[in-house]
């Protein structure tokens, strides 16, 4: 009967499969969010996205992953009680009244990578990382959210769908339609988010799936068999325009404020070949997090608009 433990006060969002309300946990007065899954809409019973979200959030308990506080059934609807997270990285990036520093970016990257590292070490792929799914708590903590596309790490011969991840954050192996892929797809997405944080505009904004390849390879170079063995055997590879990878100097010009180790981290997260792309541990242990400036204390980052 835990529905009586929570109040739904304000509707704050409506997606294809859920309505989100803000409310309170009656016993503590804490603010919470209730994601009400519209089960009646689905002719196949409980929706797959809802099942995935419940399944994976049950297993994950980490300061940088959204906390599932409770689940309850009411009026044939499934309700997920989640911690209240007032904003997200997309809002912050877009709001030009918010000023943030390289140390703030480092803090967000650190928290994002820690959260995703925890997801990965539980043998889970997120498959939809983007600024909009990196929520921010009142204390400034990044919380990886929305596990509606997540799945277990596949076995060696398992076939997967490549139709995952929002287009701009989609790794090259997915663009090529790979039937097997792994943790590296999430690292790519974080790499694109890193670039977007530094540029404050989307880094690889493809207009459609074909254009996404064009945009990606023009910015980062078309992969060849030399750095990615057998990449040319993907269907459609032959039609591609071959761009050279950007030189360090070109990157420096594009990312003016970035330090050398920031560029090194970004380059290794955006490695074309998923086999040589860094994993979350390599990212977390990179020089970027050791050099100055130190990452800002999350509570000190001002994420609400400042009137200039």
């Amino acid at each position, binding site marked *: 009967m835990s529905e009586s433990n929570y109040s739904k006060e304000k509707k704050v969002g409506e997606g294809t499969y859920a309505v989100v309300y803000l409310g309170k946990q009656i016993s503590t007065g804490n603010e919470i969010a209730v994601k009400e899954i519209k089960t009646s809409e689905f*002719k196949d*019973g409980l929706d797959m996205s809802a099942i995935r979200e419940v399944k994976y959030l049950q297993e994950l308990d980490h300061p940088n992953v959204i906390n599932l506080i409770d689940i309850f059934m009411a009026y044939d609807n499934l309700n997920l009680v989640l911690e209240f997270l007032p904003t997200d990285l997309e809002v912050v990036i877009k709001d030009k009244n918010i000023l943030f520093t390289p140390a703030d970016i480092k803090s967000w990257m650190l928290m994002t990578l*820690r959260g995703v590292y925890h997801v990965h070490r539980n043998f889970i792929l997120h498959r939809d990382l983007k600024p909009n799914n990196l929520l921010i708590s009142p204390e400034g903590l990044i919380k990886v959210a929305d596990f509606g596309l997540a799945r277990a790490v596949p076995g060696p011969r398992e076939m997967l769908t490549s139709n995952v991840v929002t287009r701009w954050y989609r790794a090259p192996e997915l663009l090529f339609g790979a039937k097997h892929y792994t943790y590296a797809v999430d690292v790519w997405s974080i790499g694109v988010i890193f670039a977007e944080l530094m540029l404050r505009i989307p880094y690889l904004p493809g207009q459609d799936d074909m254009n996404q390849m064009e945009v990606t390879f023009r910015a980062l170079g078309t992969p060849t068999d030399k750095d990615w063995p057998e990449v040319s055997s993907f269907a459609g590879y032959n039609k591609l325009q071959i761009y050279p990878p950007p030189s360090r100097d070109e990157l420096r010009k594009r990312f003016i404020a970035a330090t050398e180790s920031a560029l090194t981290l970004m380059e290794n997260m955006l490695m074309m070949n998923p086999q040589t792309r860094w994993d979350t541990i390599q990212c977390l242990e990179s020089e970027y997090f050791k050099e100055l400036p130190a990452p800002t204390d999350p509570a000190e980052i001002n994420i609400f608009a400042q009137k200039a």
Partner: protein
Amino acid sequence: MSREVSKTPESVKLESSEDLQKEDSNKPPNYKRISDDDLYRHSSQYRMWSFTENNLRERRKQTNDRAVSMINQQLGKFMEENKSTLTEEETNTLNVKASPLSMEEELQLINFYSKKVQVIAQHLNLPTEVIATSITFFRRFFLDNSVMEYDPKNLVHTTIFLACKSENYFISVDSFAKKAKSTRDAILKYEFKLVESLKFSLLNHHPYKPLHGFFLDIQTVLHGKVDLKYMGQIYDRCKKKITDSLLTDIVYLFTPPQITLAIISLEDEQLISRYLGLKFGKEDATEASKGESDTSIENKEEDEEKEAKPSEEIELNKLLAILADCKDKLEKSLSVTTDEAKRVAAKNYYCQNPSILLQKLKRKLEASNAESPNKKQKVEE
């Protein structure tokens, strides 16, 4: 249903040692990298679905007690309402044939239907993991729900269908219903109840992955000393035995790697004792330390002891004792005969539908009454 939030002592420990990426000098004094063992303790399978034998019995007893008192109440009411018309024979029949099931009888019926879940899921050509999850969901459902409250046959398709979705093997409900010769409504009717009874814990760690891992590691540790073709043969047999073990209580009492080792050991005891001896034995410590450490075995051991030792070190004798216990329980788990299951199923039906039992009794009496005069006549003629 409120979810038990995972603020166990382990979880606090896990979060506090989370700052693992800080520079070496900043590491807290009790710094410890999180092991696979810690992660398993954090899983919902360990938190919610691992029990001691006593816990497990207690839980089933509670479920059975609740259902028994419900049935007795209904039966009492029925007897009371029909007091004036019940004959002595009818009362006797009711007492004998319409009594609630015992905990043991419930378990027999659950075991029988778990096997049915497996057979049907195999018949539908589903992948091994989906079959395993179907069985697991089904058995977990009946830990907290009695077969006197929910007829197990109504949950067979529901669990298989949910397992498909949960294991990312989507089939639309219509084509599933067609293949399973069921209906959409029958399949979905108890889906919510099922998910709720599973306490929204859907991720299972089945022993197939440890089996794969141990086979690779055995071939590394015993390199050149095992025949690869032979290993391939026992691999398939072990896989089958793992699926069978999911039909038993083993899964509540032991961790997946423990079950795996016990099963390989049932196939080839020597292989496992050589492997574990080399890997964890004291004498061959040098050779063993070359293999990668695997701490996931010691899941059920006490924390204090674990912390007193380096995490790689596993006490071989203790492990062997756990495996012996697991093997013993695996060998002792019995399957239920169809006749026995039919008997229990009939009892289950009549205790919930006493009037049907009485109708049946009446028809039987009428039939024999109708028959007897004829017989008499025959004799007289």
